[in-house]
């Protein structure tokens, strides 16, 4: 099949699924809805594999399959096609999206079967995938933005899926509004780039990127990329716009796995990698990205330490891991960022689905303080969760180890890296190991604190199969990008990942200045792994062996614990500094300006219009002959003007 056809099927299959489920959204036949949706995504996955195989069959410099379905917008020199492109980056993305997506769809059949709105749920999910594919495949920023907004919409719909609960509906709105702020910046970024380069096509933009670094903060590329990055902070939950993601856990757990862990939130990273030639020439933007990424990684990890909701822990963990990705792209390690994006998609989806399985088993109980000792009730879930846990804390040879370690290595060794960034990353990794172990210990290990009325049970096969597949991927997913030092040590395993992405990744121009030895790399690797191991061990002891130790530590750190426990009061600060003043200012404007000035003006205008209208109405009295008279008068006037004038 031609690649045009494949891309069309890839895109349209979820849309068809959405329509099929959407038109019968009142149905509660979970099996039918789930089959349609999962089938649609599976078809997409098959197309993605076929496309990937076609891509592999091409020589590396020609790996770029494009298709343009129609001209979407044409205004003067501004032309946008409904064009889609499959190249090395988007091929990986579509594989992740459709692959992980189909697993999560499958899982959802089991997870949502008791829900009344299951058909609507699957319709939304398919629609999300359609938009995500547009986002990923779109060949111009505008096409990407369509998907960008579309996934935002679906995210909103799915977070507020149980909208009868006003807190959940509010969480949806919070996500939506926070994203809007980022989107506004994204649009401004697009304006700047279009103004500068005259195109929004990403391929052309990359080709047009200047070769000289832009050292100024106000350069067009710097400003444009900075704005795009602010857009990315909204979508990918970075400081300062990360606040929506933890709340987004109000949605069904598979949604959290798909949208808020594996796919949508990585869109920002993907976008930056897409446009890496532009970002490379703006070192200031890169610096900002790296710092924001590192700060987010640490900050979110610290908050994660104190959370007691299983999904909130995972949410902060996601924010933290996204911070790693941004750290990677910020120091110029775009390949590493993409690598971590992929491995993170595997193990975080796994853990979310695992948490879903736990919640399902616990009858919608999400508080880890009320769990414990679930290992014996949920053996499969526990086992796969362990695989995810080992991956996220960076234990070799699990997937997370390779990607996280590569990021840390680049943070240190890259010309745009810094030792402080590495330290931040390492602290983040340590904290991650600690809170993830805490999560494991409180949930699965130790003594049971489960309520007597709850009888945990293992989930059905339809839910555990995705867990197993993702667990496998969490183990082997990292093997495609084994660092040189290890591969040389073990044998001669090529680094597929770097080779694959190489044609699309711009090398940092100042790369070859400092030489780093393999010893340094081994040393850093050892340090981070041992730090993580130590903190994991500490956490394990603290939460399983010595009951009460955690409280002691918390008491010892008193105010700091309180600060962290309350998520640094960020939400409160936003309310106090931005939202409340805005609301009161708006209210004042309403009471004084609106009522006294605008309303009165509009009343006057209304009176004027009404008066004029009643006059005109008197002309329009249904008397046809009078209408004819107006016509004649008009002709007379026009004719006399023509004759006289």
């Amino acid at each position, binding site marked *: 099949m031609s690649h045009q056809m494949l891309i069309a099927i890839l895109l349209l299959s979820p849309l068809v699924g959405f329509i099929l489920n959407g038109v019968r959204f009142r149905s509660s036949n979970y099996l039918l809805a789930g089959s349609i949706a999962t089938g649609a995504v599976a078809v997409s996955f098959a197309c993605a594999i076929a496309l990937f195989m076609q891509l592999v069959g091409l020589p590396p410099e020609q790996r770029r399959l494009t298709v343009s379905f129609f001209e979407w917008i044409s205004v003067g020199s501004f032309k946008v096609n409904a064009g889609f492109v499959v190249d090395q980056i988007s091929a990986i993305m579509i594989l992740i999206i459709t692959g992980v997506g189909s697993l999560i769809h499958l899982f959802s059949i089991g997870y949502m079967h008791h829900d009344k709105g299951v058909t609507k749920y699957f319709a939304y999910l398919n629609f999300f995938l359609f938009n995500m594919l547009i986002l990923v495949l779109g060949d111009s920023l505008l096409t990407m933005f369509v998907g960008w907004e579309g996934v935002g919409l679906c995210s909103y719909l799915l977070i507020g899926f149980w909208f009868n609960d006003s807190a959940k509906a509010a969480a949806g709105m919070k996500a939506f509004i926070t994203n809007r702020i980022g989107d506004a910046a994204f649009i401004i970024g697009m304006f700047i780039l279009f103004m500068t380069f005259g195109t929004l096509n990403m391929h052309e933009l990359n080709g047009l990127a200047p070769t000289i670094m832009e050292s100024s903060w106000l350069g067009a590329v710097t400003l444009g990329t900075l704005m795009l990055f602010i857009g990315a902070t909204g979508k990918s939950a970075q400081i300062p716009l990360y606040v929506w993601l933890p709340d987004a856990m109000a949605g069904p757990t598979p949604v959290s796995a798909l949208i808020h862990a594996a796919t949508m939130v990585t869109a920002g990273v993907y976008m930056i990698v897409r446009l890496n030639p532009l970002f490379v020439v703006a070192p200031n933007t890169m610096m900002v990205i790296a710092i924001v990424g590192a700060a987010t990684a640490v900050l979110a990890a610290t908050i994660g330490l104190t959370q007691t909701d299983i999904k909130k822990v995972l949410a902060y963990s996601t924010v933290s891991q996204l911070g790693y990705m941004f750290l990677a792209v910020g120091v110029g390690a775009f390949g590493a960022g993409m690598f971590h994006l992929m491995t993170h998609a595997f193990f975080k989806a796994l853990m979310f689905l695992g948490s879903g399985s736990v919640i399902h088993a616990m009858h919608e109980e999400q508080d880890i303080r009320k769990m414990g000792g679930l290992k014996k009730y949920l053996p499969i879930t526990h086992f796969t969760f362990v695989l995810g846990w080992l991956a996220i804390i960076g234990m070799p040879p699990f997937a997370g180890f390779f990607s996280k370690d590569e990021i840390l290595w680049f943070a240190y060794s890259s010309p745009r890296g810094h030792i402080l960034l590495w330290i931040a990353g390492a602290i983040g990794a340590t904290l991650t190991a600690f809170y993830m172990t805490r999560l494991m210990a409180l949930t699965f290990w130790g003594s049971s604190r489960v309520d007597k009325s709850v009888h945990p049970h293992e989930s059905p096969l339809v839910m555990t199969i995705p867990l197993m597949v993702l667990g496998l991927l969490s183990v082997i997913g990292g093997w495609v990008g084994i660092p040189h030092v290890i591969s040389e040590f073990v044998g001669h395993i090529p680094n597929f990942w770097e080779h694959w992405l190489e044609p699309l990744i711009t090398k940092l121009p100042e790369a070859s200045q400092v030489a780093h030895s393999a010893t340094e790399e081994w040393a850093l690797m050892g340090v981070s792994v041992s730090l993580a191991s130590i903190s994991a061990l500490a956490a394990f002891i603290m939460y399983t062996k010595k009951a009460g130790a955690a409280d002691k530590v918390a008491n010892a750190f008193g105010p700091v614990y309180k600060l962290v426990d309350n998520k640094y009061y960020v939400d409160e600060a936003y309310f106090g500094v931005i939202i409340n003043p805005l609301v009161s200012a708006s209210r004042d404007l309403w009471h004084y300006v609106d009522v006294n000035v605008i309303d009165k003006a509009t009343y006057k205008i209304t009176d004027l219009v009404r008066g004029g209208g009643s006059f005109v109405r008197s002309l329009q009295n249904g008397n046809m*002959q009078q209408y004819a*008279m107006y016509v*004649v008068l008009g*002709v007379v006037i026009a004719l006399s003007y023509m*004759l006289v004038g």
Partner: protein
Amino acid sequence: MTADVFIFWFLAILTIVSALSVVLMTNPIYSALSLAMTMVSVAAIFVTLQAYFLAGVQLIVYAGAVMVLFVMVLMLFDLKNELQAFSRGKFTGAIKVGAVGILAGLIVGAVGSFIMAGKSGAPVTPEASTSADATKALSEHLFFNHVFGFEALGVLLLVIAVGTVALSRSKGGTHAKH
């Protein structure tokens, strides 16, 4: 004064007088008969302009069919002299009459200025070829150059026929009294 000139003036005056009586007669039947008279004289004017076929069609279609229908309908209605043949309102009536008068003046003035400016330029054609050829040319124009319009008119007539039958057979629609 040649015969042609005499005939033109005769027909012009006949046309205008009968047209005036269409508007001024208070009995609609007289109006209709005057209109038929107008149609006939317009047909005669077509003859002076050597549009013989159109003159015939004018007689058959307008004078023969359309106007007869008018007259029949009027006679069916059995309307007497109208007490109020003209619409009320002296002011608007004055405006209407004035507007029409000015319009007529303007058009006549425009036509007049058309000659006086010497822009008429169009040569008065030599005696047109025989009318049989003219009719043939007319039909060729109709069926080659304007065939789409012709077909569209056919469709229009069909629609009109259906609509008219539906309208006249309806028992009063939403305003039915019974």
